[in-house]
């Protein structure tokens, strides 16, 4: 048995040792064995609209430049001058075809080529001019751009495995492609990063931790009948440590203030068009909520009323930084967009009615782990014995932890056995001929 994960299938019971959240040695191993060997999210293609747009980001501790070059291709560079190391780009975002290092003035293009160095005659005629360095791999899936620092890693589609289908569901919400809105939520939390991973698809805590939020929703709507939609949901293993907590059709509608009739009609009309394009069953799925974690640190939460992309960065064993973006259909009318923004902000972010409560919960967990000598284990067993697992069970976290345990300790634990997914959660995305495409074709 690994010293961190106790996966007892007979009782059954699943426990995680709290040292996994406090031990600096574990933290170092995570850097080496997880973050240096995974595909990690850097940003969305729609954040770089024009040629030579750039954003600076941190991924796995590395300062990176996320850019679109002059020809429109997405590029990722290490934000360090090949000369003597100064940070080349010191702004969070901007547009520049050439980036000039402020230290000695070497200059590089967004395609990574060196373009000039002051007083170059002081270098010999055979001097090899260095270009910018980049991560081992860069690839994207439906606009979500990932990097990896591992030359030998499997390709991105293989890595994403079942998570691809859920990125499809999120991305299909708009016929013209979803777009990341300008602006970010940036906050920190004095807790281990894995606590926010767990929290991001934890259906169990919703009603207790977020009572305040749901009271607001009830007050705004007059009533809220969540029982029926909550009764039917699934936690699903998507492979490679990824998992999703997916609601049934209509589960998206229990979040947020009610839409105005006009906004509701606009959204329904869009869903109708999507039904013609991708099939009824796919759109029924699309209309359900989904909280997904793509191993190790990318969270995509789609509550239909709003979509958040959340990137979790471990800074030290007991401290993380979080960056979050809103993904939205760019073709929405003004009123629907206004309500979407309102629903997003009243739930998520440092000023939302939900995120601060989550942060508070995680920070108290971390503080309490000071007593790990007396109370060594956390319990994550919920739903283990059941034939089917729901979003309020803890199967999704166990999926994460088994993968984590395998990478950190080498111990392989067999997957949990549950009944096969019902038809609803397996409905495929169809490519139907729509009237327009028939006319065009």
């Amino acid at each position, binding site marked *: 048995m690994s010293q961190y994960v106790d996966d007892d299938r007979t009782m059954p019971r699943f426990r995680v040792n709290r040292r996994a959240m406090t031990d600096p040695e574990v933290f170092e191993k995570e850097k080496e064995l997880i973050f240096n060997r995974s595909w990690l999210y850097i940003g969305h293609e729609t954040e770089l609209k024009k040629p030579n747009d750039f954003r600076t980001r941190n991924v796995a501790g590395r300062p990176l430049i996320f850019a679109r070059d002059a020809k429109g291709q997405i590029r990722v560079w290490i934000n360090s001058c090949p000369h003597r190391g100064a940070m080349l780009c010191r702004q969070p975002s901007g*547009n520049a075809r050439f980036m000039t290092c402020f230290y000695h003035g070497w*200059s590089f293009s967004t395609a990574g080529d060196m373009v000039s160095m002051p007083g170059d005659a002081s270098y010999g*005629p055979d001097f090899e001019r260095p270009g910018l360095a980049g991560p081992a791999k860069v690839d994207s899936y439906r606009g979500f751009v990932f990097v990896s620092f591992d030359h030998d890693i499997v390709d991105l589609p293989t890595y994403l495995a079942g998570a691809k289908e859920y990125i499809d569901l999120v991305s299909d919400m708009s016929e013209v492609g979803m777009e990341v809105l300008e602006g970010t939520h940036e906050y920190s939390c004095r807790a281990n990063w894995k606590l926010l991973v767990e929290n991001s698809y934890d259906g169990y805590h919703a009603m207790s931790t977020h009572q305040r939020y749901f009271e607001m929703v009830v007050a705004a709507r007059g009533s809220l009948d969540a029982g029926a939609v909550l009764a039917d949901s699934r936690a699903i293993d998507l492979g490679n440590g990824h998992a999703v907590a997916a609601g049934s059709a209509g589960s998206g509608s229990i979040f947020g203030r009610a839409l105005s009739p006009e906004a509701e009609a606009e959204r329904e009309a869009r869903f109708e068009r999507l039904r013609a394009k991708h099939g009824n069953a796919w759109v029924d799925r699309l209309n359900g909520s989904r909280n997904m974690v793509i191993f190790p640190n990318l969270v995509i939460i789609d509550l239909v009323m709003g979509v958040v992309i959340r990137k979790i960065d471990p800074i030290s064993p007991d401290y993380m930084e979080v960056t979050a973006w809103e993904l939205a259909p760019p073709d929405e009318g003004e009123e629907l967009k206004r309500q979407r923004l309102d629903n997003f902000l009243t739930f998520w972010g440092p000023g939302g009615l939900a995120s601060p409560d989550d942060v508070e919960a995680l920070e108290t967990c971390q503080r309490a782990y000071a007593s790990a000598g007396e109370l060594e284990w956390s319990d994550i067993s919920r739903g283990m014995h059941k034939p089917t697992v729901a979003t309020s069970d803890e199967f999704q976290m166990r999926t994460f932890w088994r993968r984590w345990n395998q990478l950190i300790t080498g111990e392989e634990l067999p997957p949990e056995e549950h009944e096969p997914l019902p038809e609803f959660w397996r409905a495929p995305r169809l490519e139907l001929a729509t009237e327009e495409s028939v006319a065009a074709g």
Partner: protein
Amino acid sequence: MATAVRIEPDVTEVPSGGRSLEVATVALGGVPRGAVVLLSGAGGLRHVEVVDAMNELAEHGYESVAADLGPAEDDDAALEHLRTLLDRLAARGWDLDQIGVVGYGSGGRVALLAAAAMELGAAVSVRPVLPAGLDARPVDPVRTAWLGLFGALDERTPPGSLAAFGAALAASSPVFTQVVSYPGVTGEFVHDGLHPLTHAAAYDSWQRTVEWLNARVVPRPTPLARAWHERLAHRERLSA
């Protein structure tokens, strides 16, 4: 604007668009970083300010040619003069992407037209005189990254229509564009002044102009850089 050495530009009369155009030139030795066409005109810089700007550009490594286009002519005639100036730079070996166009007043309008008509290194318009009814007519997309600097109190470009113009231009153009509006000043900020807001706008607009050029105008390669590129190309041919 204190420079240790002040370069007086060469001034020559050049035939352009059926008339004679007075062109000022500051040519530099060595390997200059890039070249700039400075256009002034109605609402633009005074002669001494043009010379100041050419000197400042020289400090940043840019050769420049400048002309005062005088009272606004029609767009075609103005673009004809711009081509005359670009030809002068081409004669000194400058490619279009190594050239920035910076225009003031009606010259700023020409810089915007140039950005729509061709692919230059960069274009900047300072308090450009824009057509009346800015937001009423569709905006031509630009092909050169364009920066527009305006005084918020300039009656010809009220902030509402300016914002709409900036948004429409950004939406239609395949390249990056930016509109900056300075609070509390009219277009007169181009002449600098003692009022803090005027001075701040003048200072900031020049800073942005130079940064806009530096971030986009393709540098002229030094002989060693050219040799390095040839070696790279040769290696690529070998590996292909």
